[in-house]
């Protein structure tokens, strides 16, 4: 139904643009998350390598450009992807009942996608705040954080990688770039590798403290 206010504020391209922003911000964040994991895993090559990498990123201002940029991208992603989450109690009840009845894997994955998304918002917020207040990043300070908050980091790792892996899977499905089952298997493999790397890294940080 057309009305005056709808006609005059209509932007037919808005939904499409928002969808593309969701795609772009999501891909940037997945890229960041996987790079972040590789950087952090530098601890496996020793304390000096880790500290040197951190200092290098600092020296060339990469941290000072990268961190605000990623925070901005994350913020955009929260707004555009968050709008997909049903916010009315009634809708949430319909979705939950629907998912339970349907017993359909991809629908459940999406339900968890919204839950991990909200969890990441809180946990990553705390994580960024802890890192920034303990600046600069050094192996000793990181080890200290991980030893005090191991469970926190385990949950953040799992939620983050789950959200990233399946988020990417869903984009591939929606745009039809590659066969759904092939891409599902590939992304699951990558996610398992990254989570394993994350677990080993956490373990390395735990041991680091024990040696001191």
């Amino acid at each position, binding site marked *: 139904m057309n009305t005056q206010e709808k006609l005059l504020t209509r932007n*037919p391209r808005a939904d499409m643009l928002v969808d593309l922003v969701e795609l772009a911000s999501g891909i940037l964040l997945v890229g960041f998350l996987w790079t972040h994991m590789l950087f952090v895993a530098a601890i496996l090559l020793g304390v000096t390598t880790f500290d040197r990498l951190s200092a290098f990123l600092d020296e060339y201002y990469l941290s000072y450009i990268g961190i605000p940029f990623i925070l901005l991208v994350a913020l955009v992603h929260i707004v555009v992807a968050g709008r997909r989450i049903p916010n009315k109690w009634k809708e949430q009840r319909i979705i939950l009942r629907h998912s339970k*009845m*349907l017993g*359909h894997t991809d629908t459940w994955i999406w339900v968890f996608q919204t839950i991990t998304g909200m969890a990441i918002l809180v946990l990553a917020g705390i994580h960024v705040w802890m890192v920034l207040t303990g600046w600069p990043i050094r192996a000793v300070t990181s080890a200290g954080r991980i030893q005090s908050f191991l469970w926190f980091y385990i949950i953040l790792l799992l939620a983050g990688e789950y959200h990233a892996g399946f988020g990417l899977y869903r984009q591939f499905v929606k745009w039809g770039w590659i066969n759904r089952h092939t891409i599902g298997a590939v992304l699951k493999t990558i996610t398992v590798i990254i989570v394993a790397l994350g677990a080993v890294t956490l373990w390395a940080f735990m041991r680091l403290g024990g040696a001191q």
Partner: protein
Amino acid sequence: MAERLLTFSIFRYNPNTPEIKPYMQEYKLEEMPGMTLFVALNKIREEQDPSLMFDFVCRAAICGSCAMLVNGKPRLACKTLTKDLPSRITLLPLPVFKLIGDLSVDTGTWFRHMSLKTEAWIHTTREFDPRAREERMDNETALKIYEAERCIECGCCIAGCATANIREDFLGAAGINRVARFMLDPRDERSPQEYFEVVGTEEGAFGCVGLMACEDNCPMGLPLQMQLAYVRRKMAAAGLAARPQTRAC
């Protein structure tokens, strides 16, 4: 093979008697070889409860009128064999569509609205000449169009879609598949921009979140993921190519 005793738990509600709240009613029935839900429901109605409402026309997966939630999943009752189900079977009417009573829903109004909204007919400026020879279409295009045309409008993809369950205006996989069918058709002269007007919003291609419950529950096995993705890609290209229109004020 020992025959099982099946228990059916069936949703009951009659909009003409709103004072009676919806409830589940149980029926017992002896299983027969090769029994479909169509046979079972008719036996229940004939032998146990003439008031039970449900729809069938073709009983051969052609008309699309018998879809219902079988143990929570959208299925065609005439195509579903009881031997593939546990001995306890729950039947609910499809969600999203207007409830006529018990297991019967009105999919017709929904699909008619969708056809009108997507203008599901060939748009052409060419005059039809009844005496001219029929024009040929290459086989590949014809097959692609036929693939989309296999939709029997049963509504399973709509019922299975989480988005359609909470957003009334969403065209769903059946609607987007319908648009894909006309996009593929060389006789339709609509421009990408004109299609964009129809499915370039969240009511169409960009409302889909890619859960694939549509594809996984389509009884005709339509390639819905690829149809949705095809329309999405086309619409993104059309939307990016278009200049934002200047407004009147």
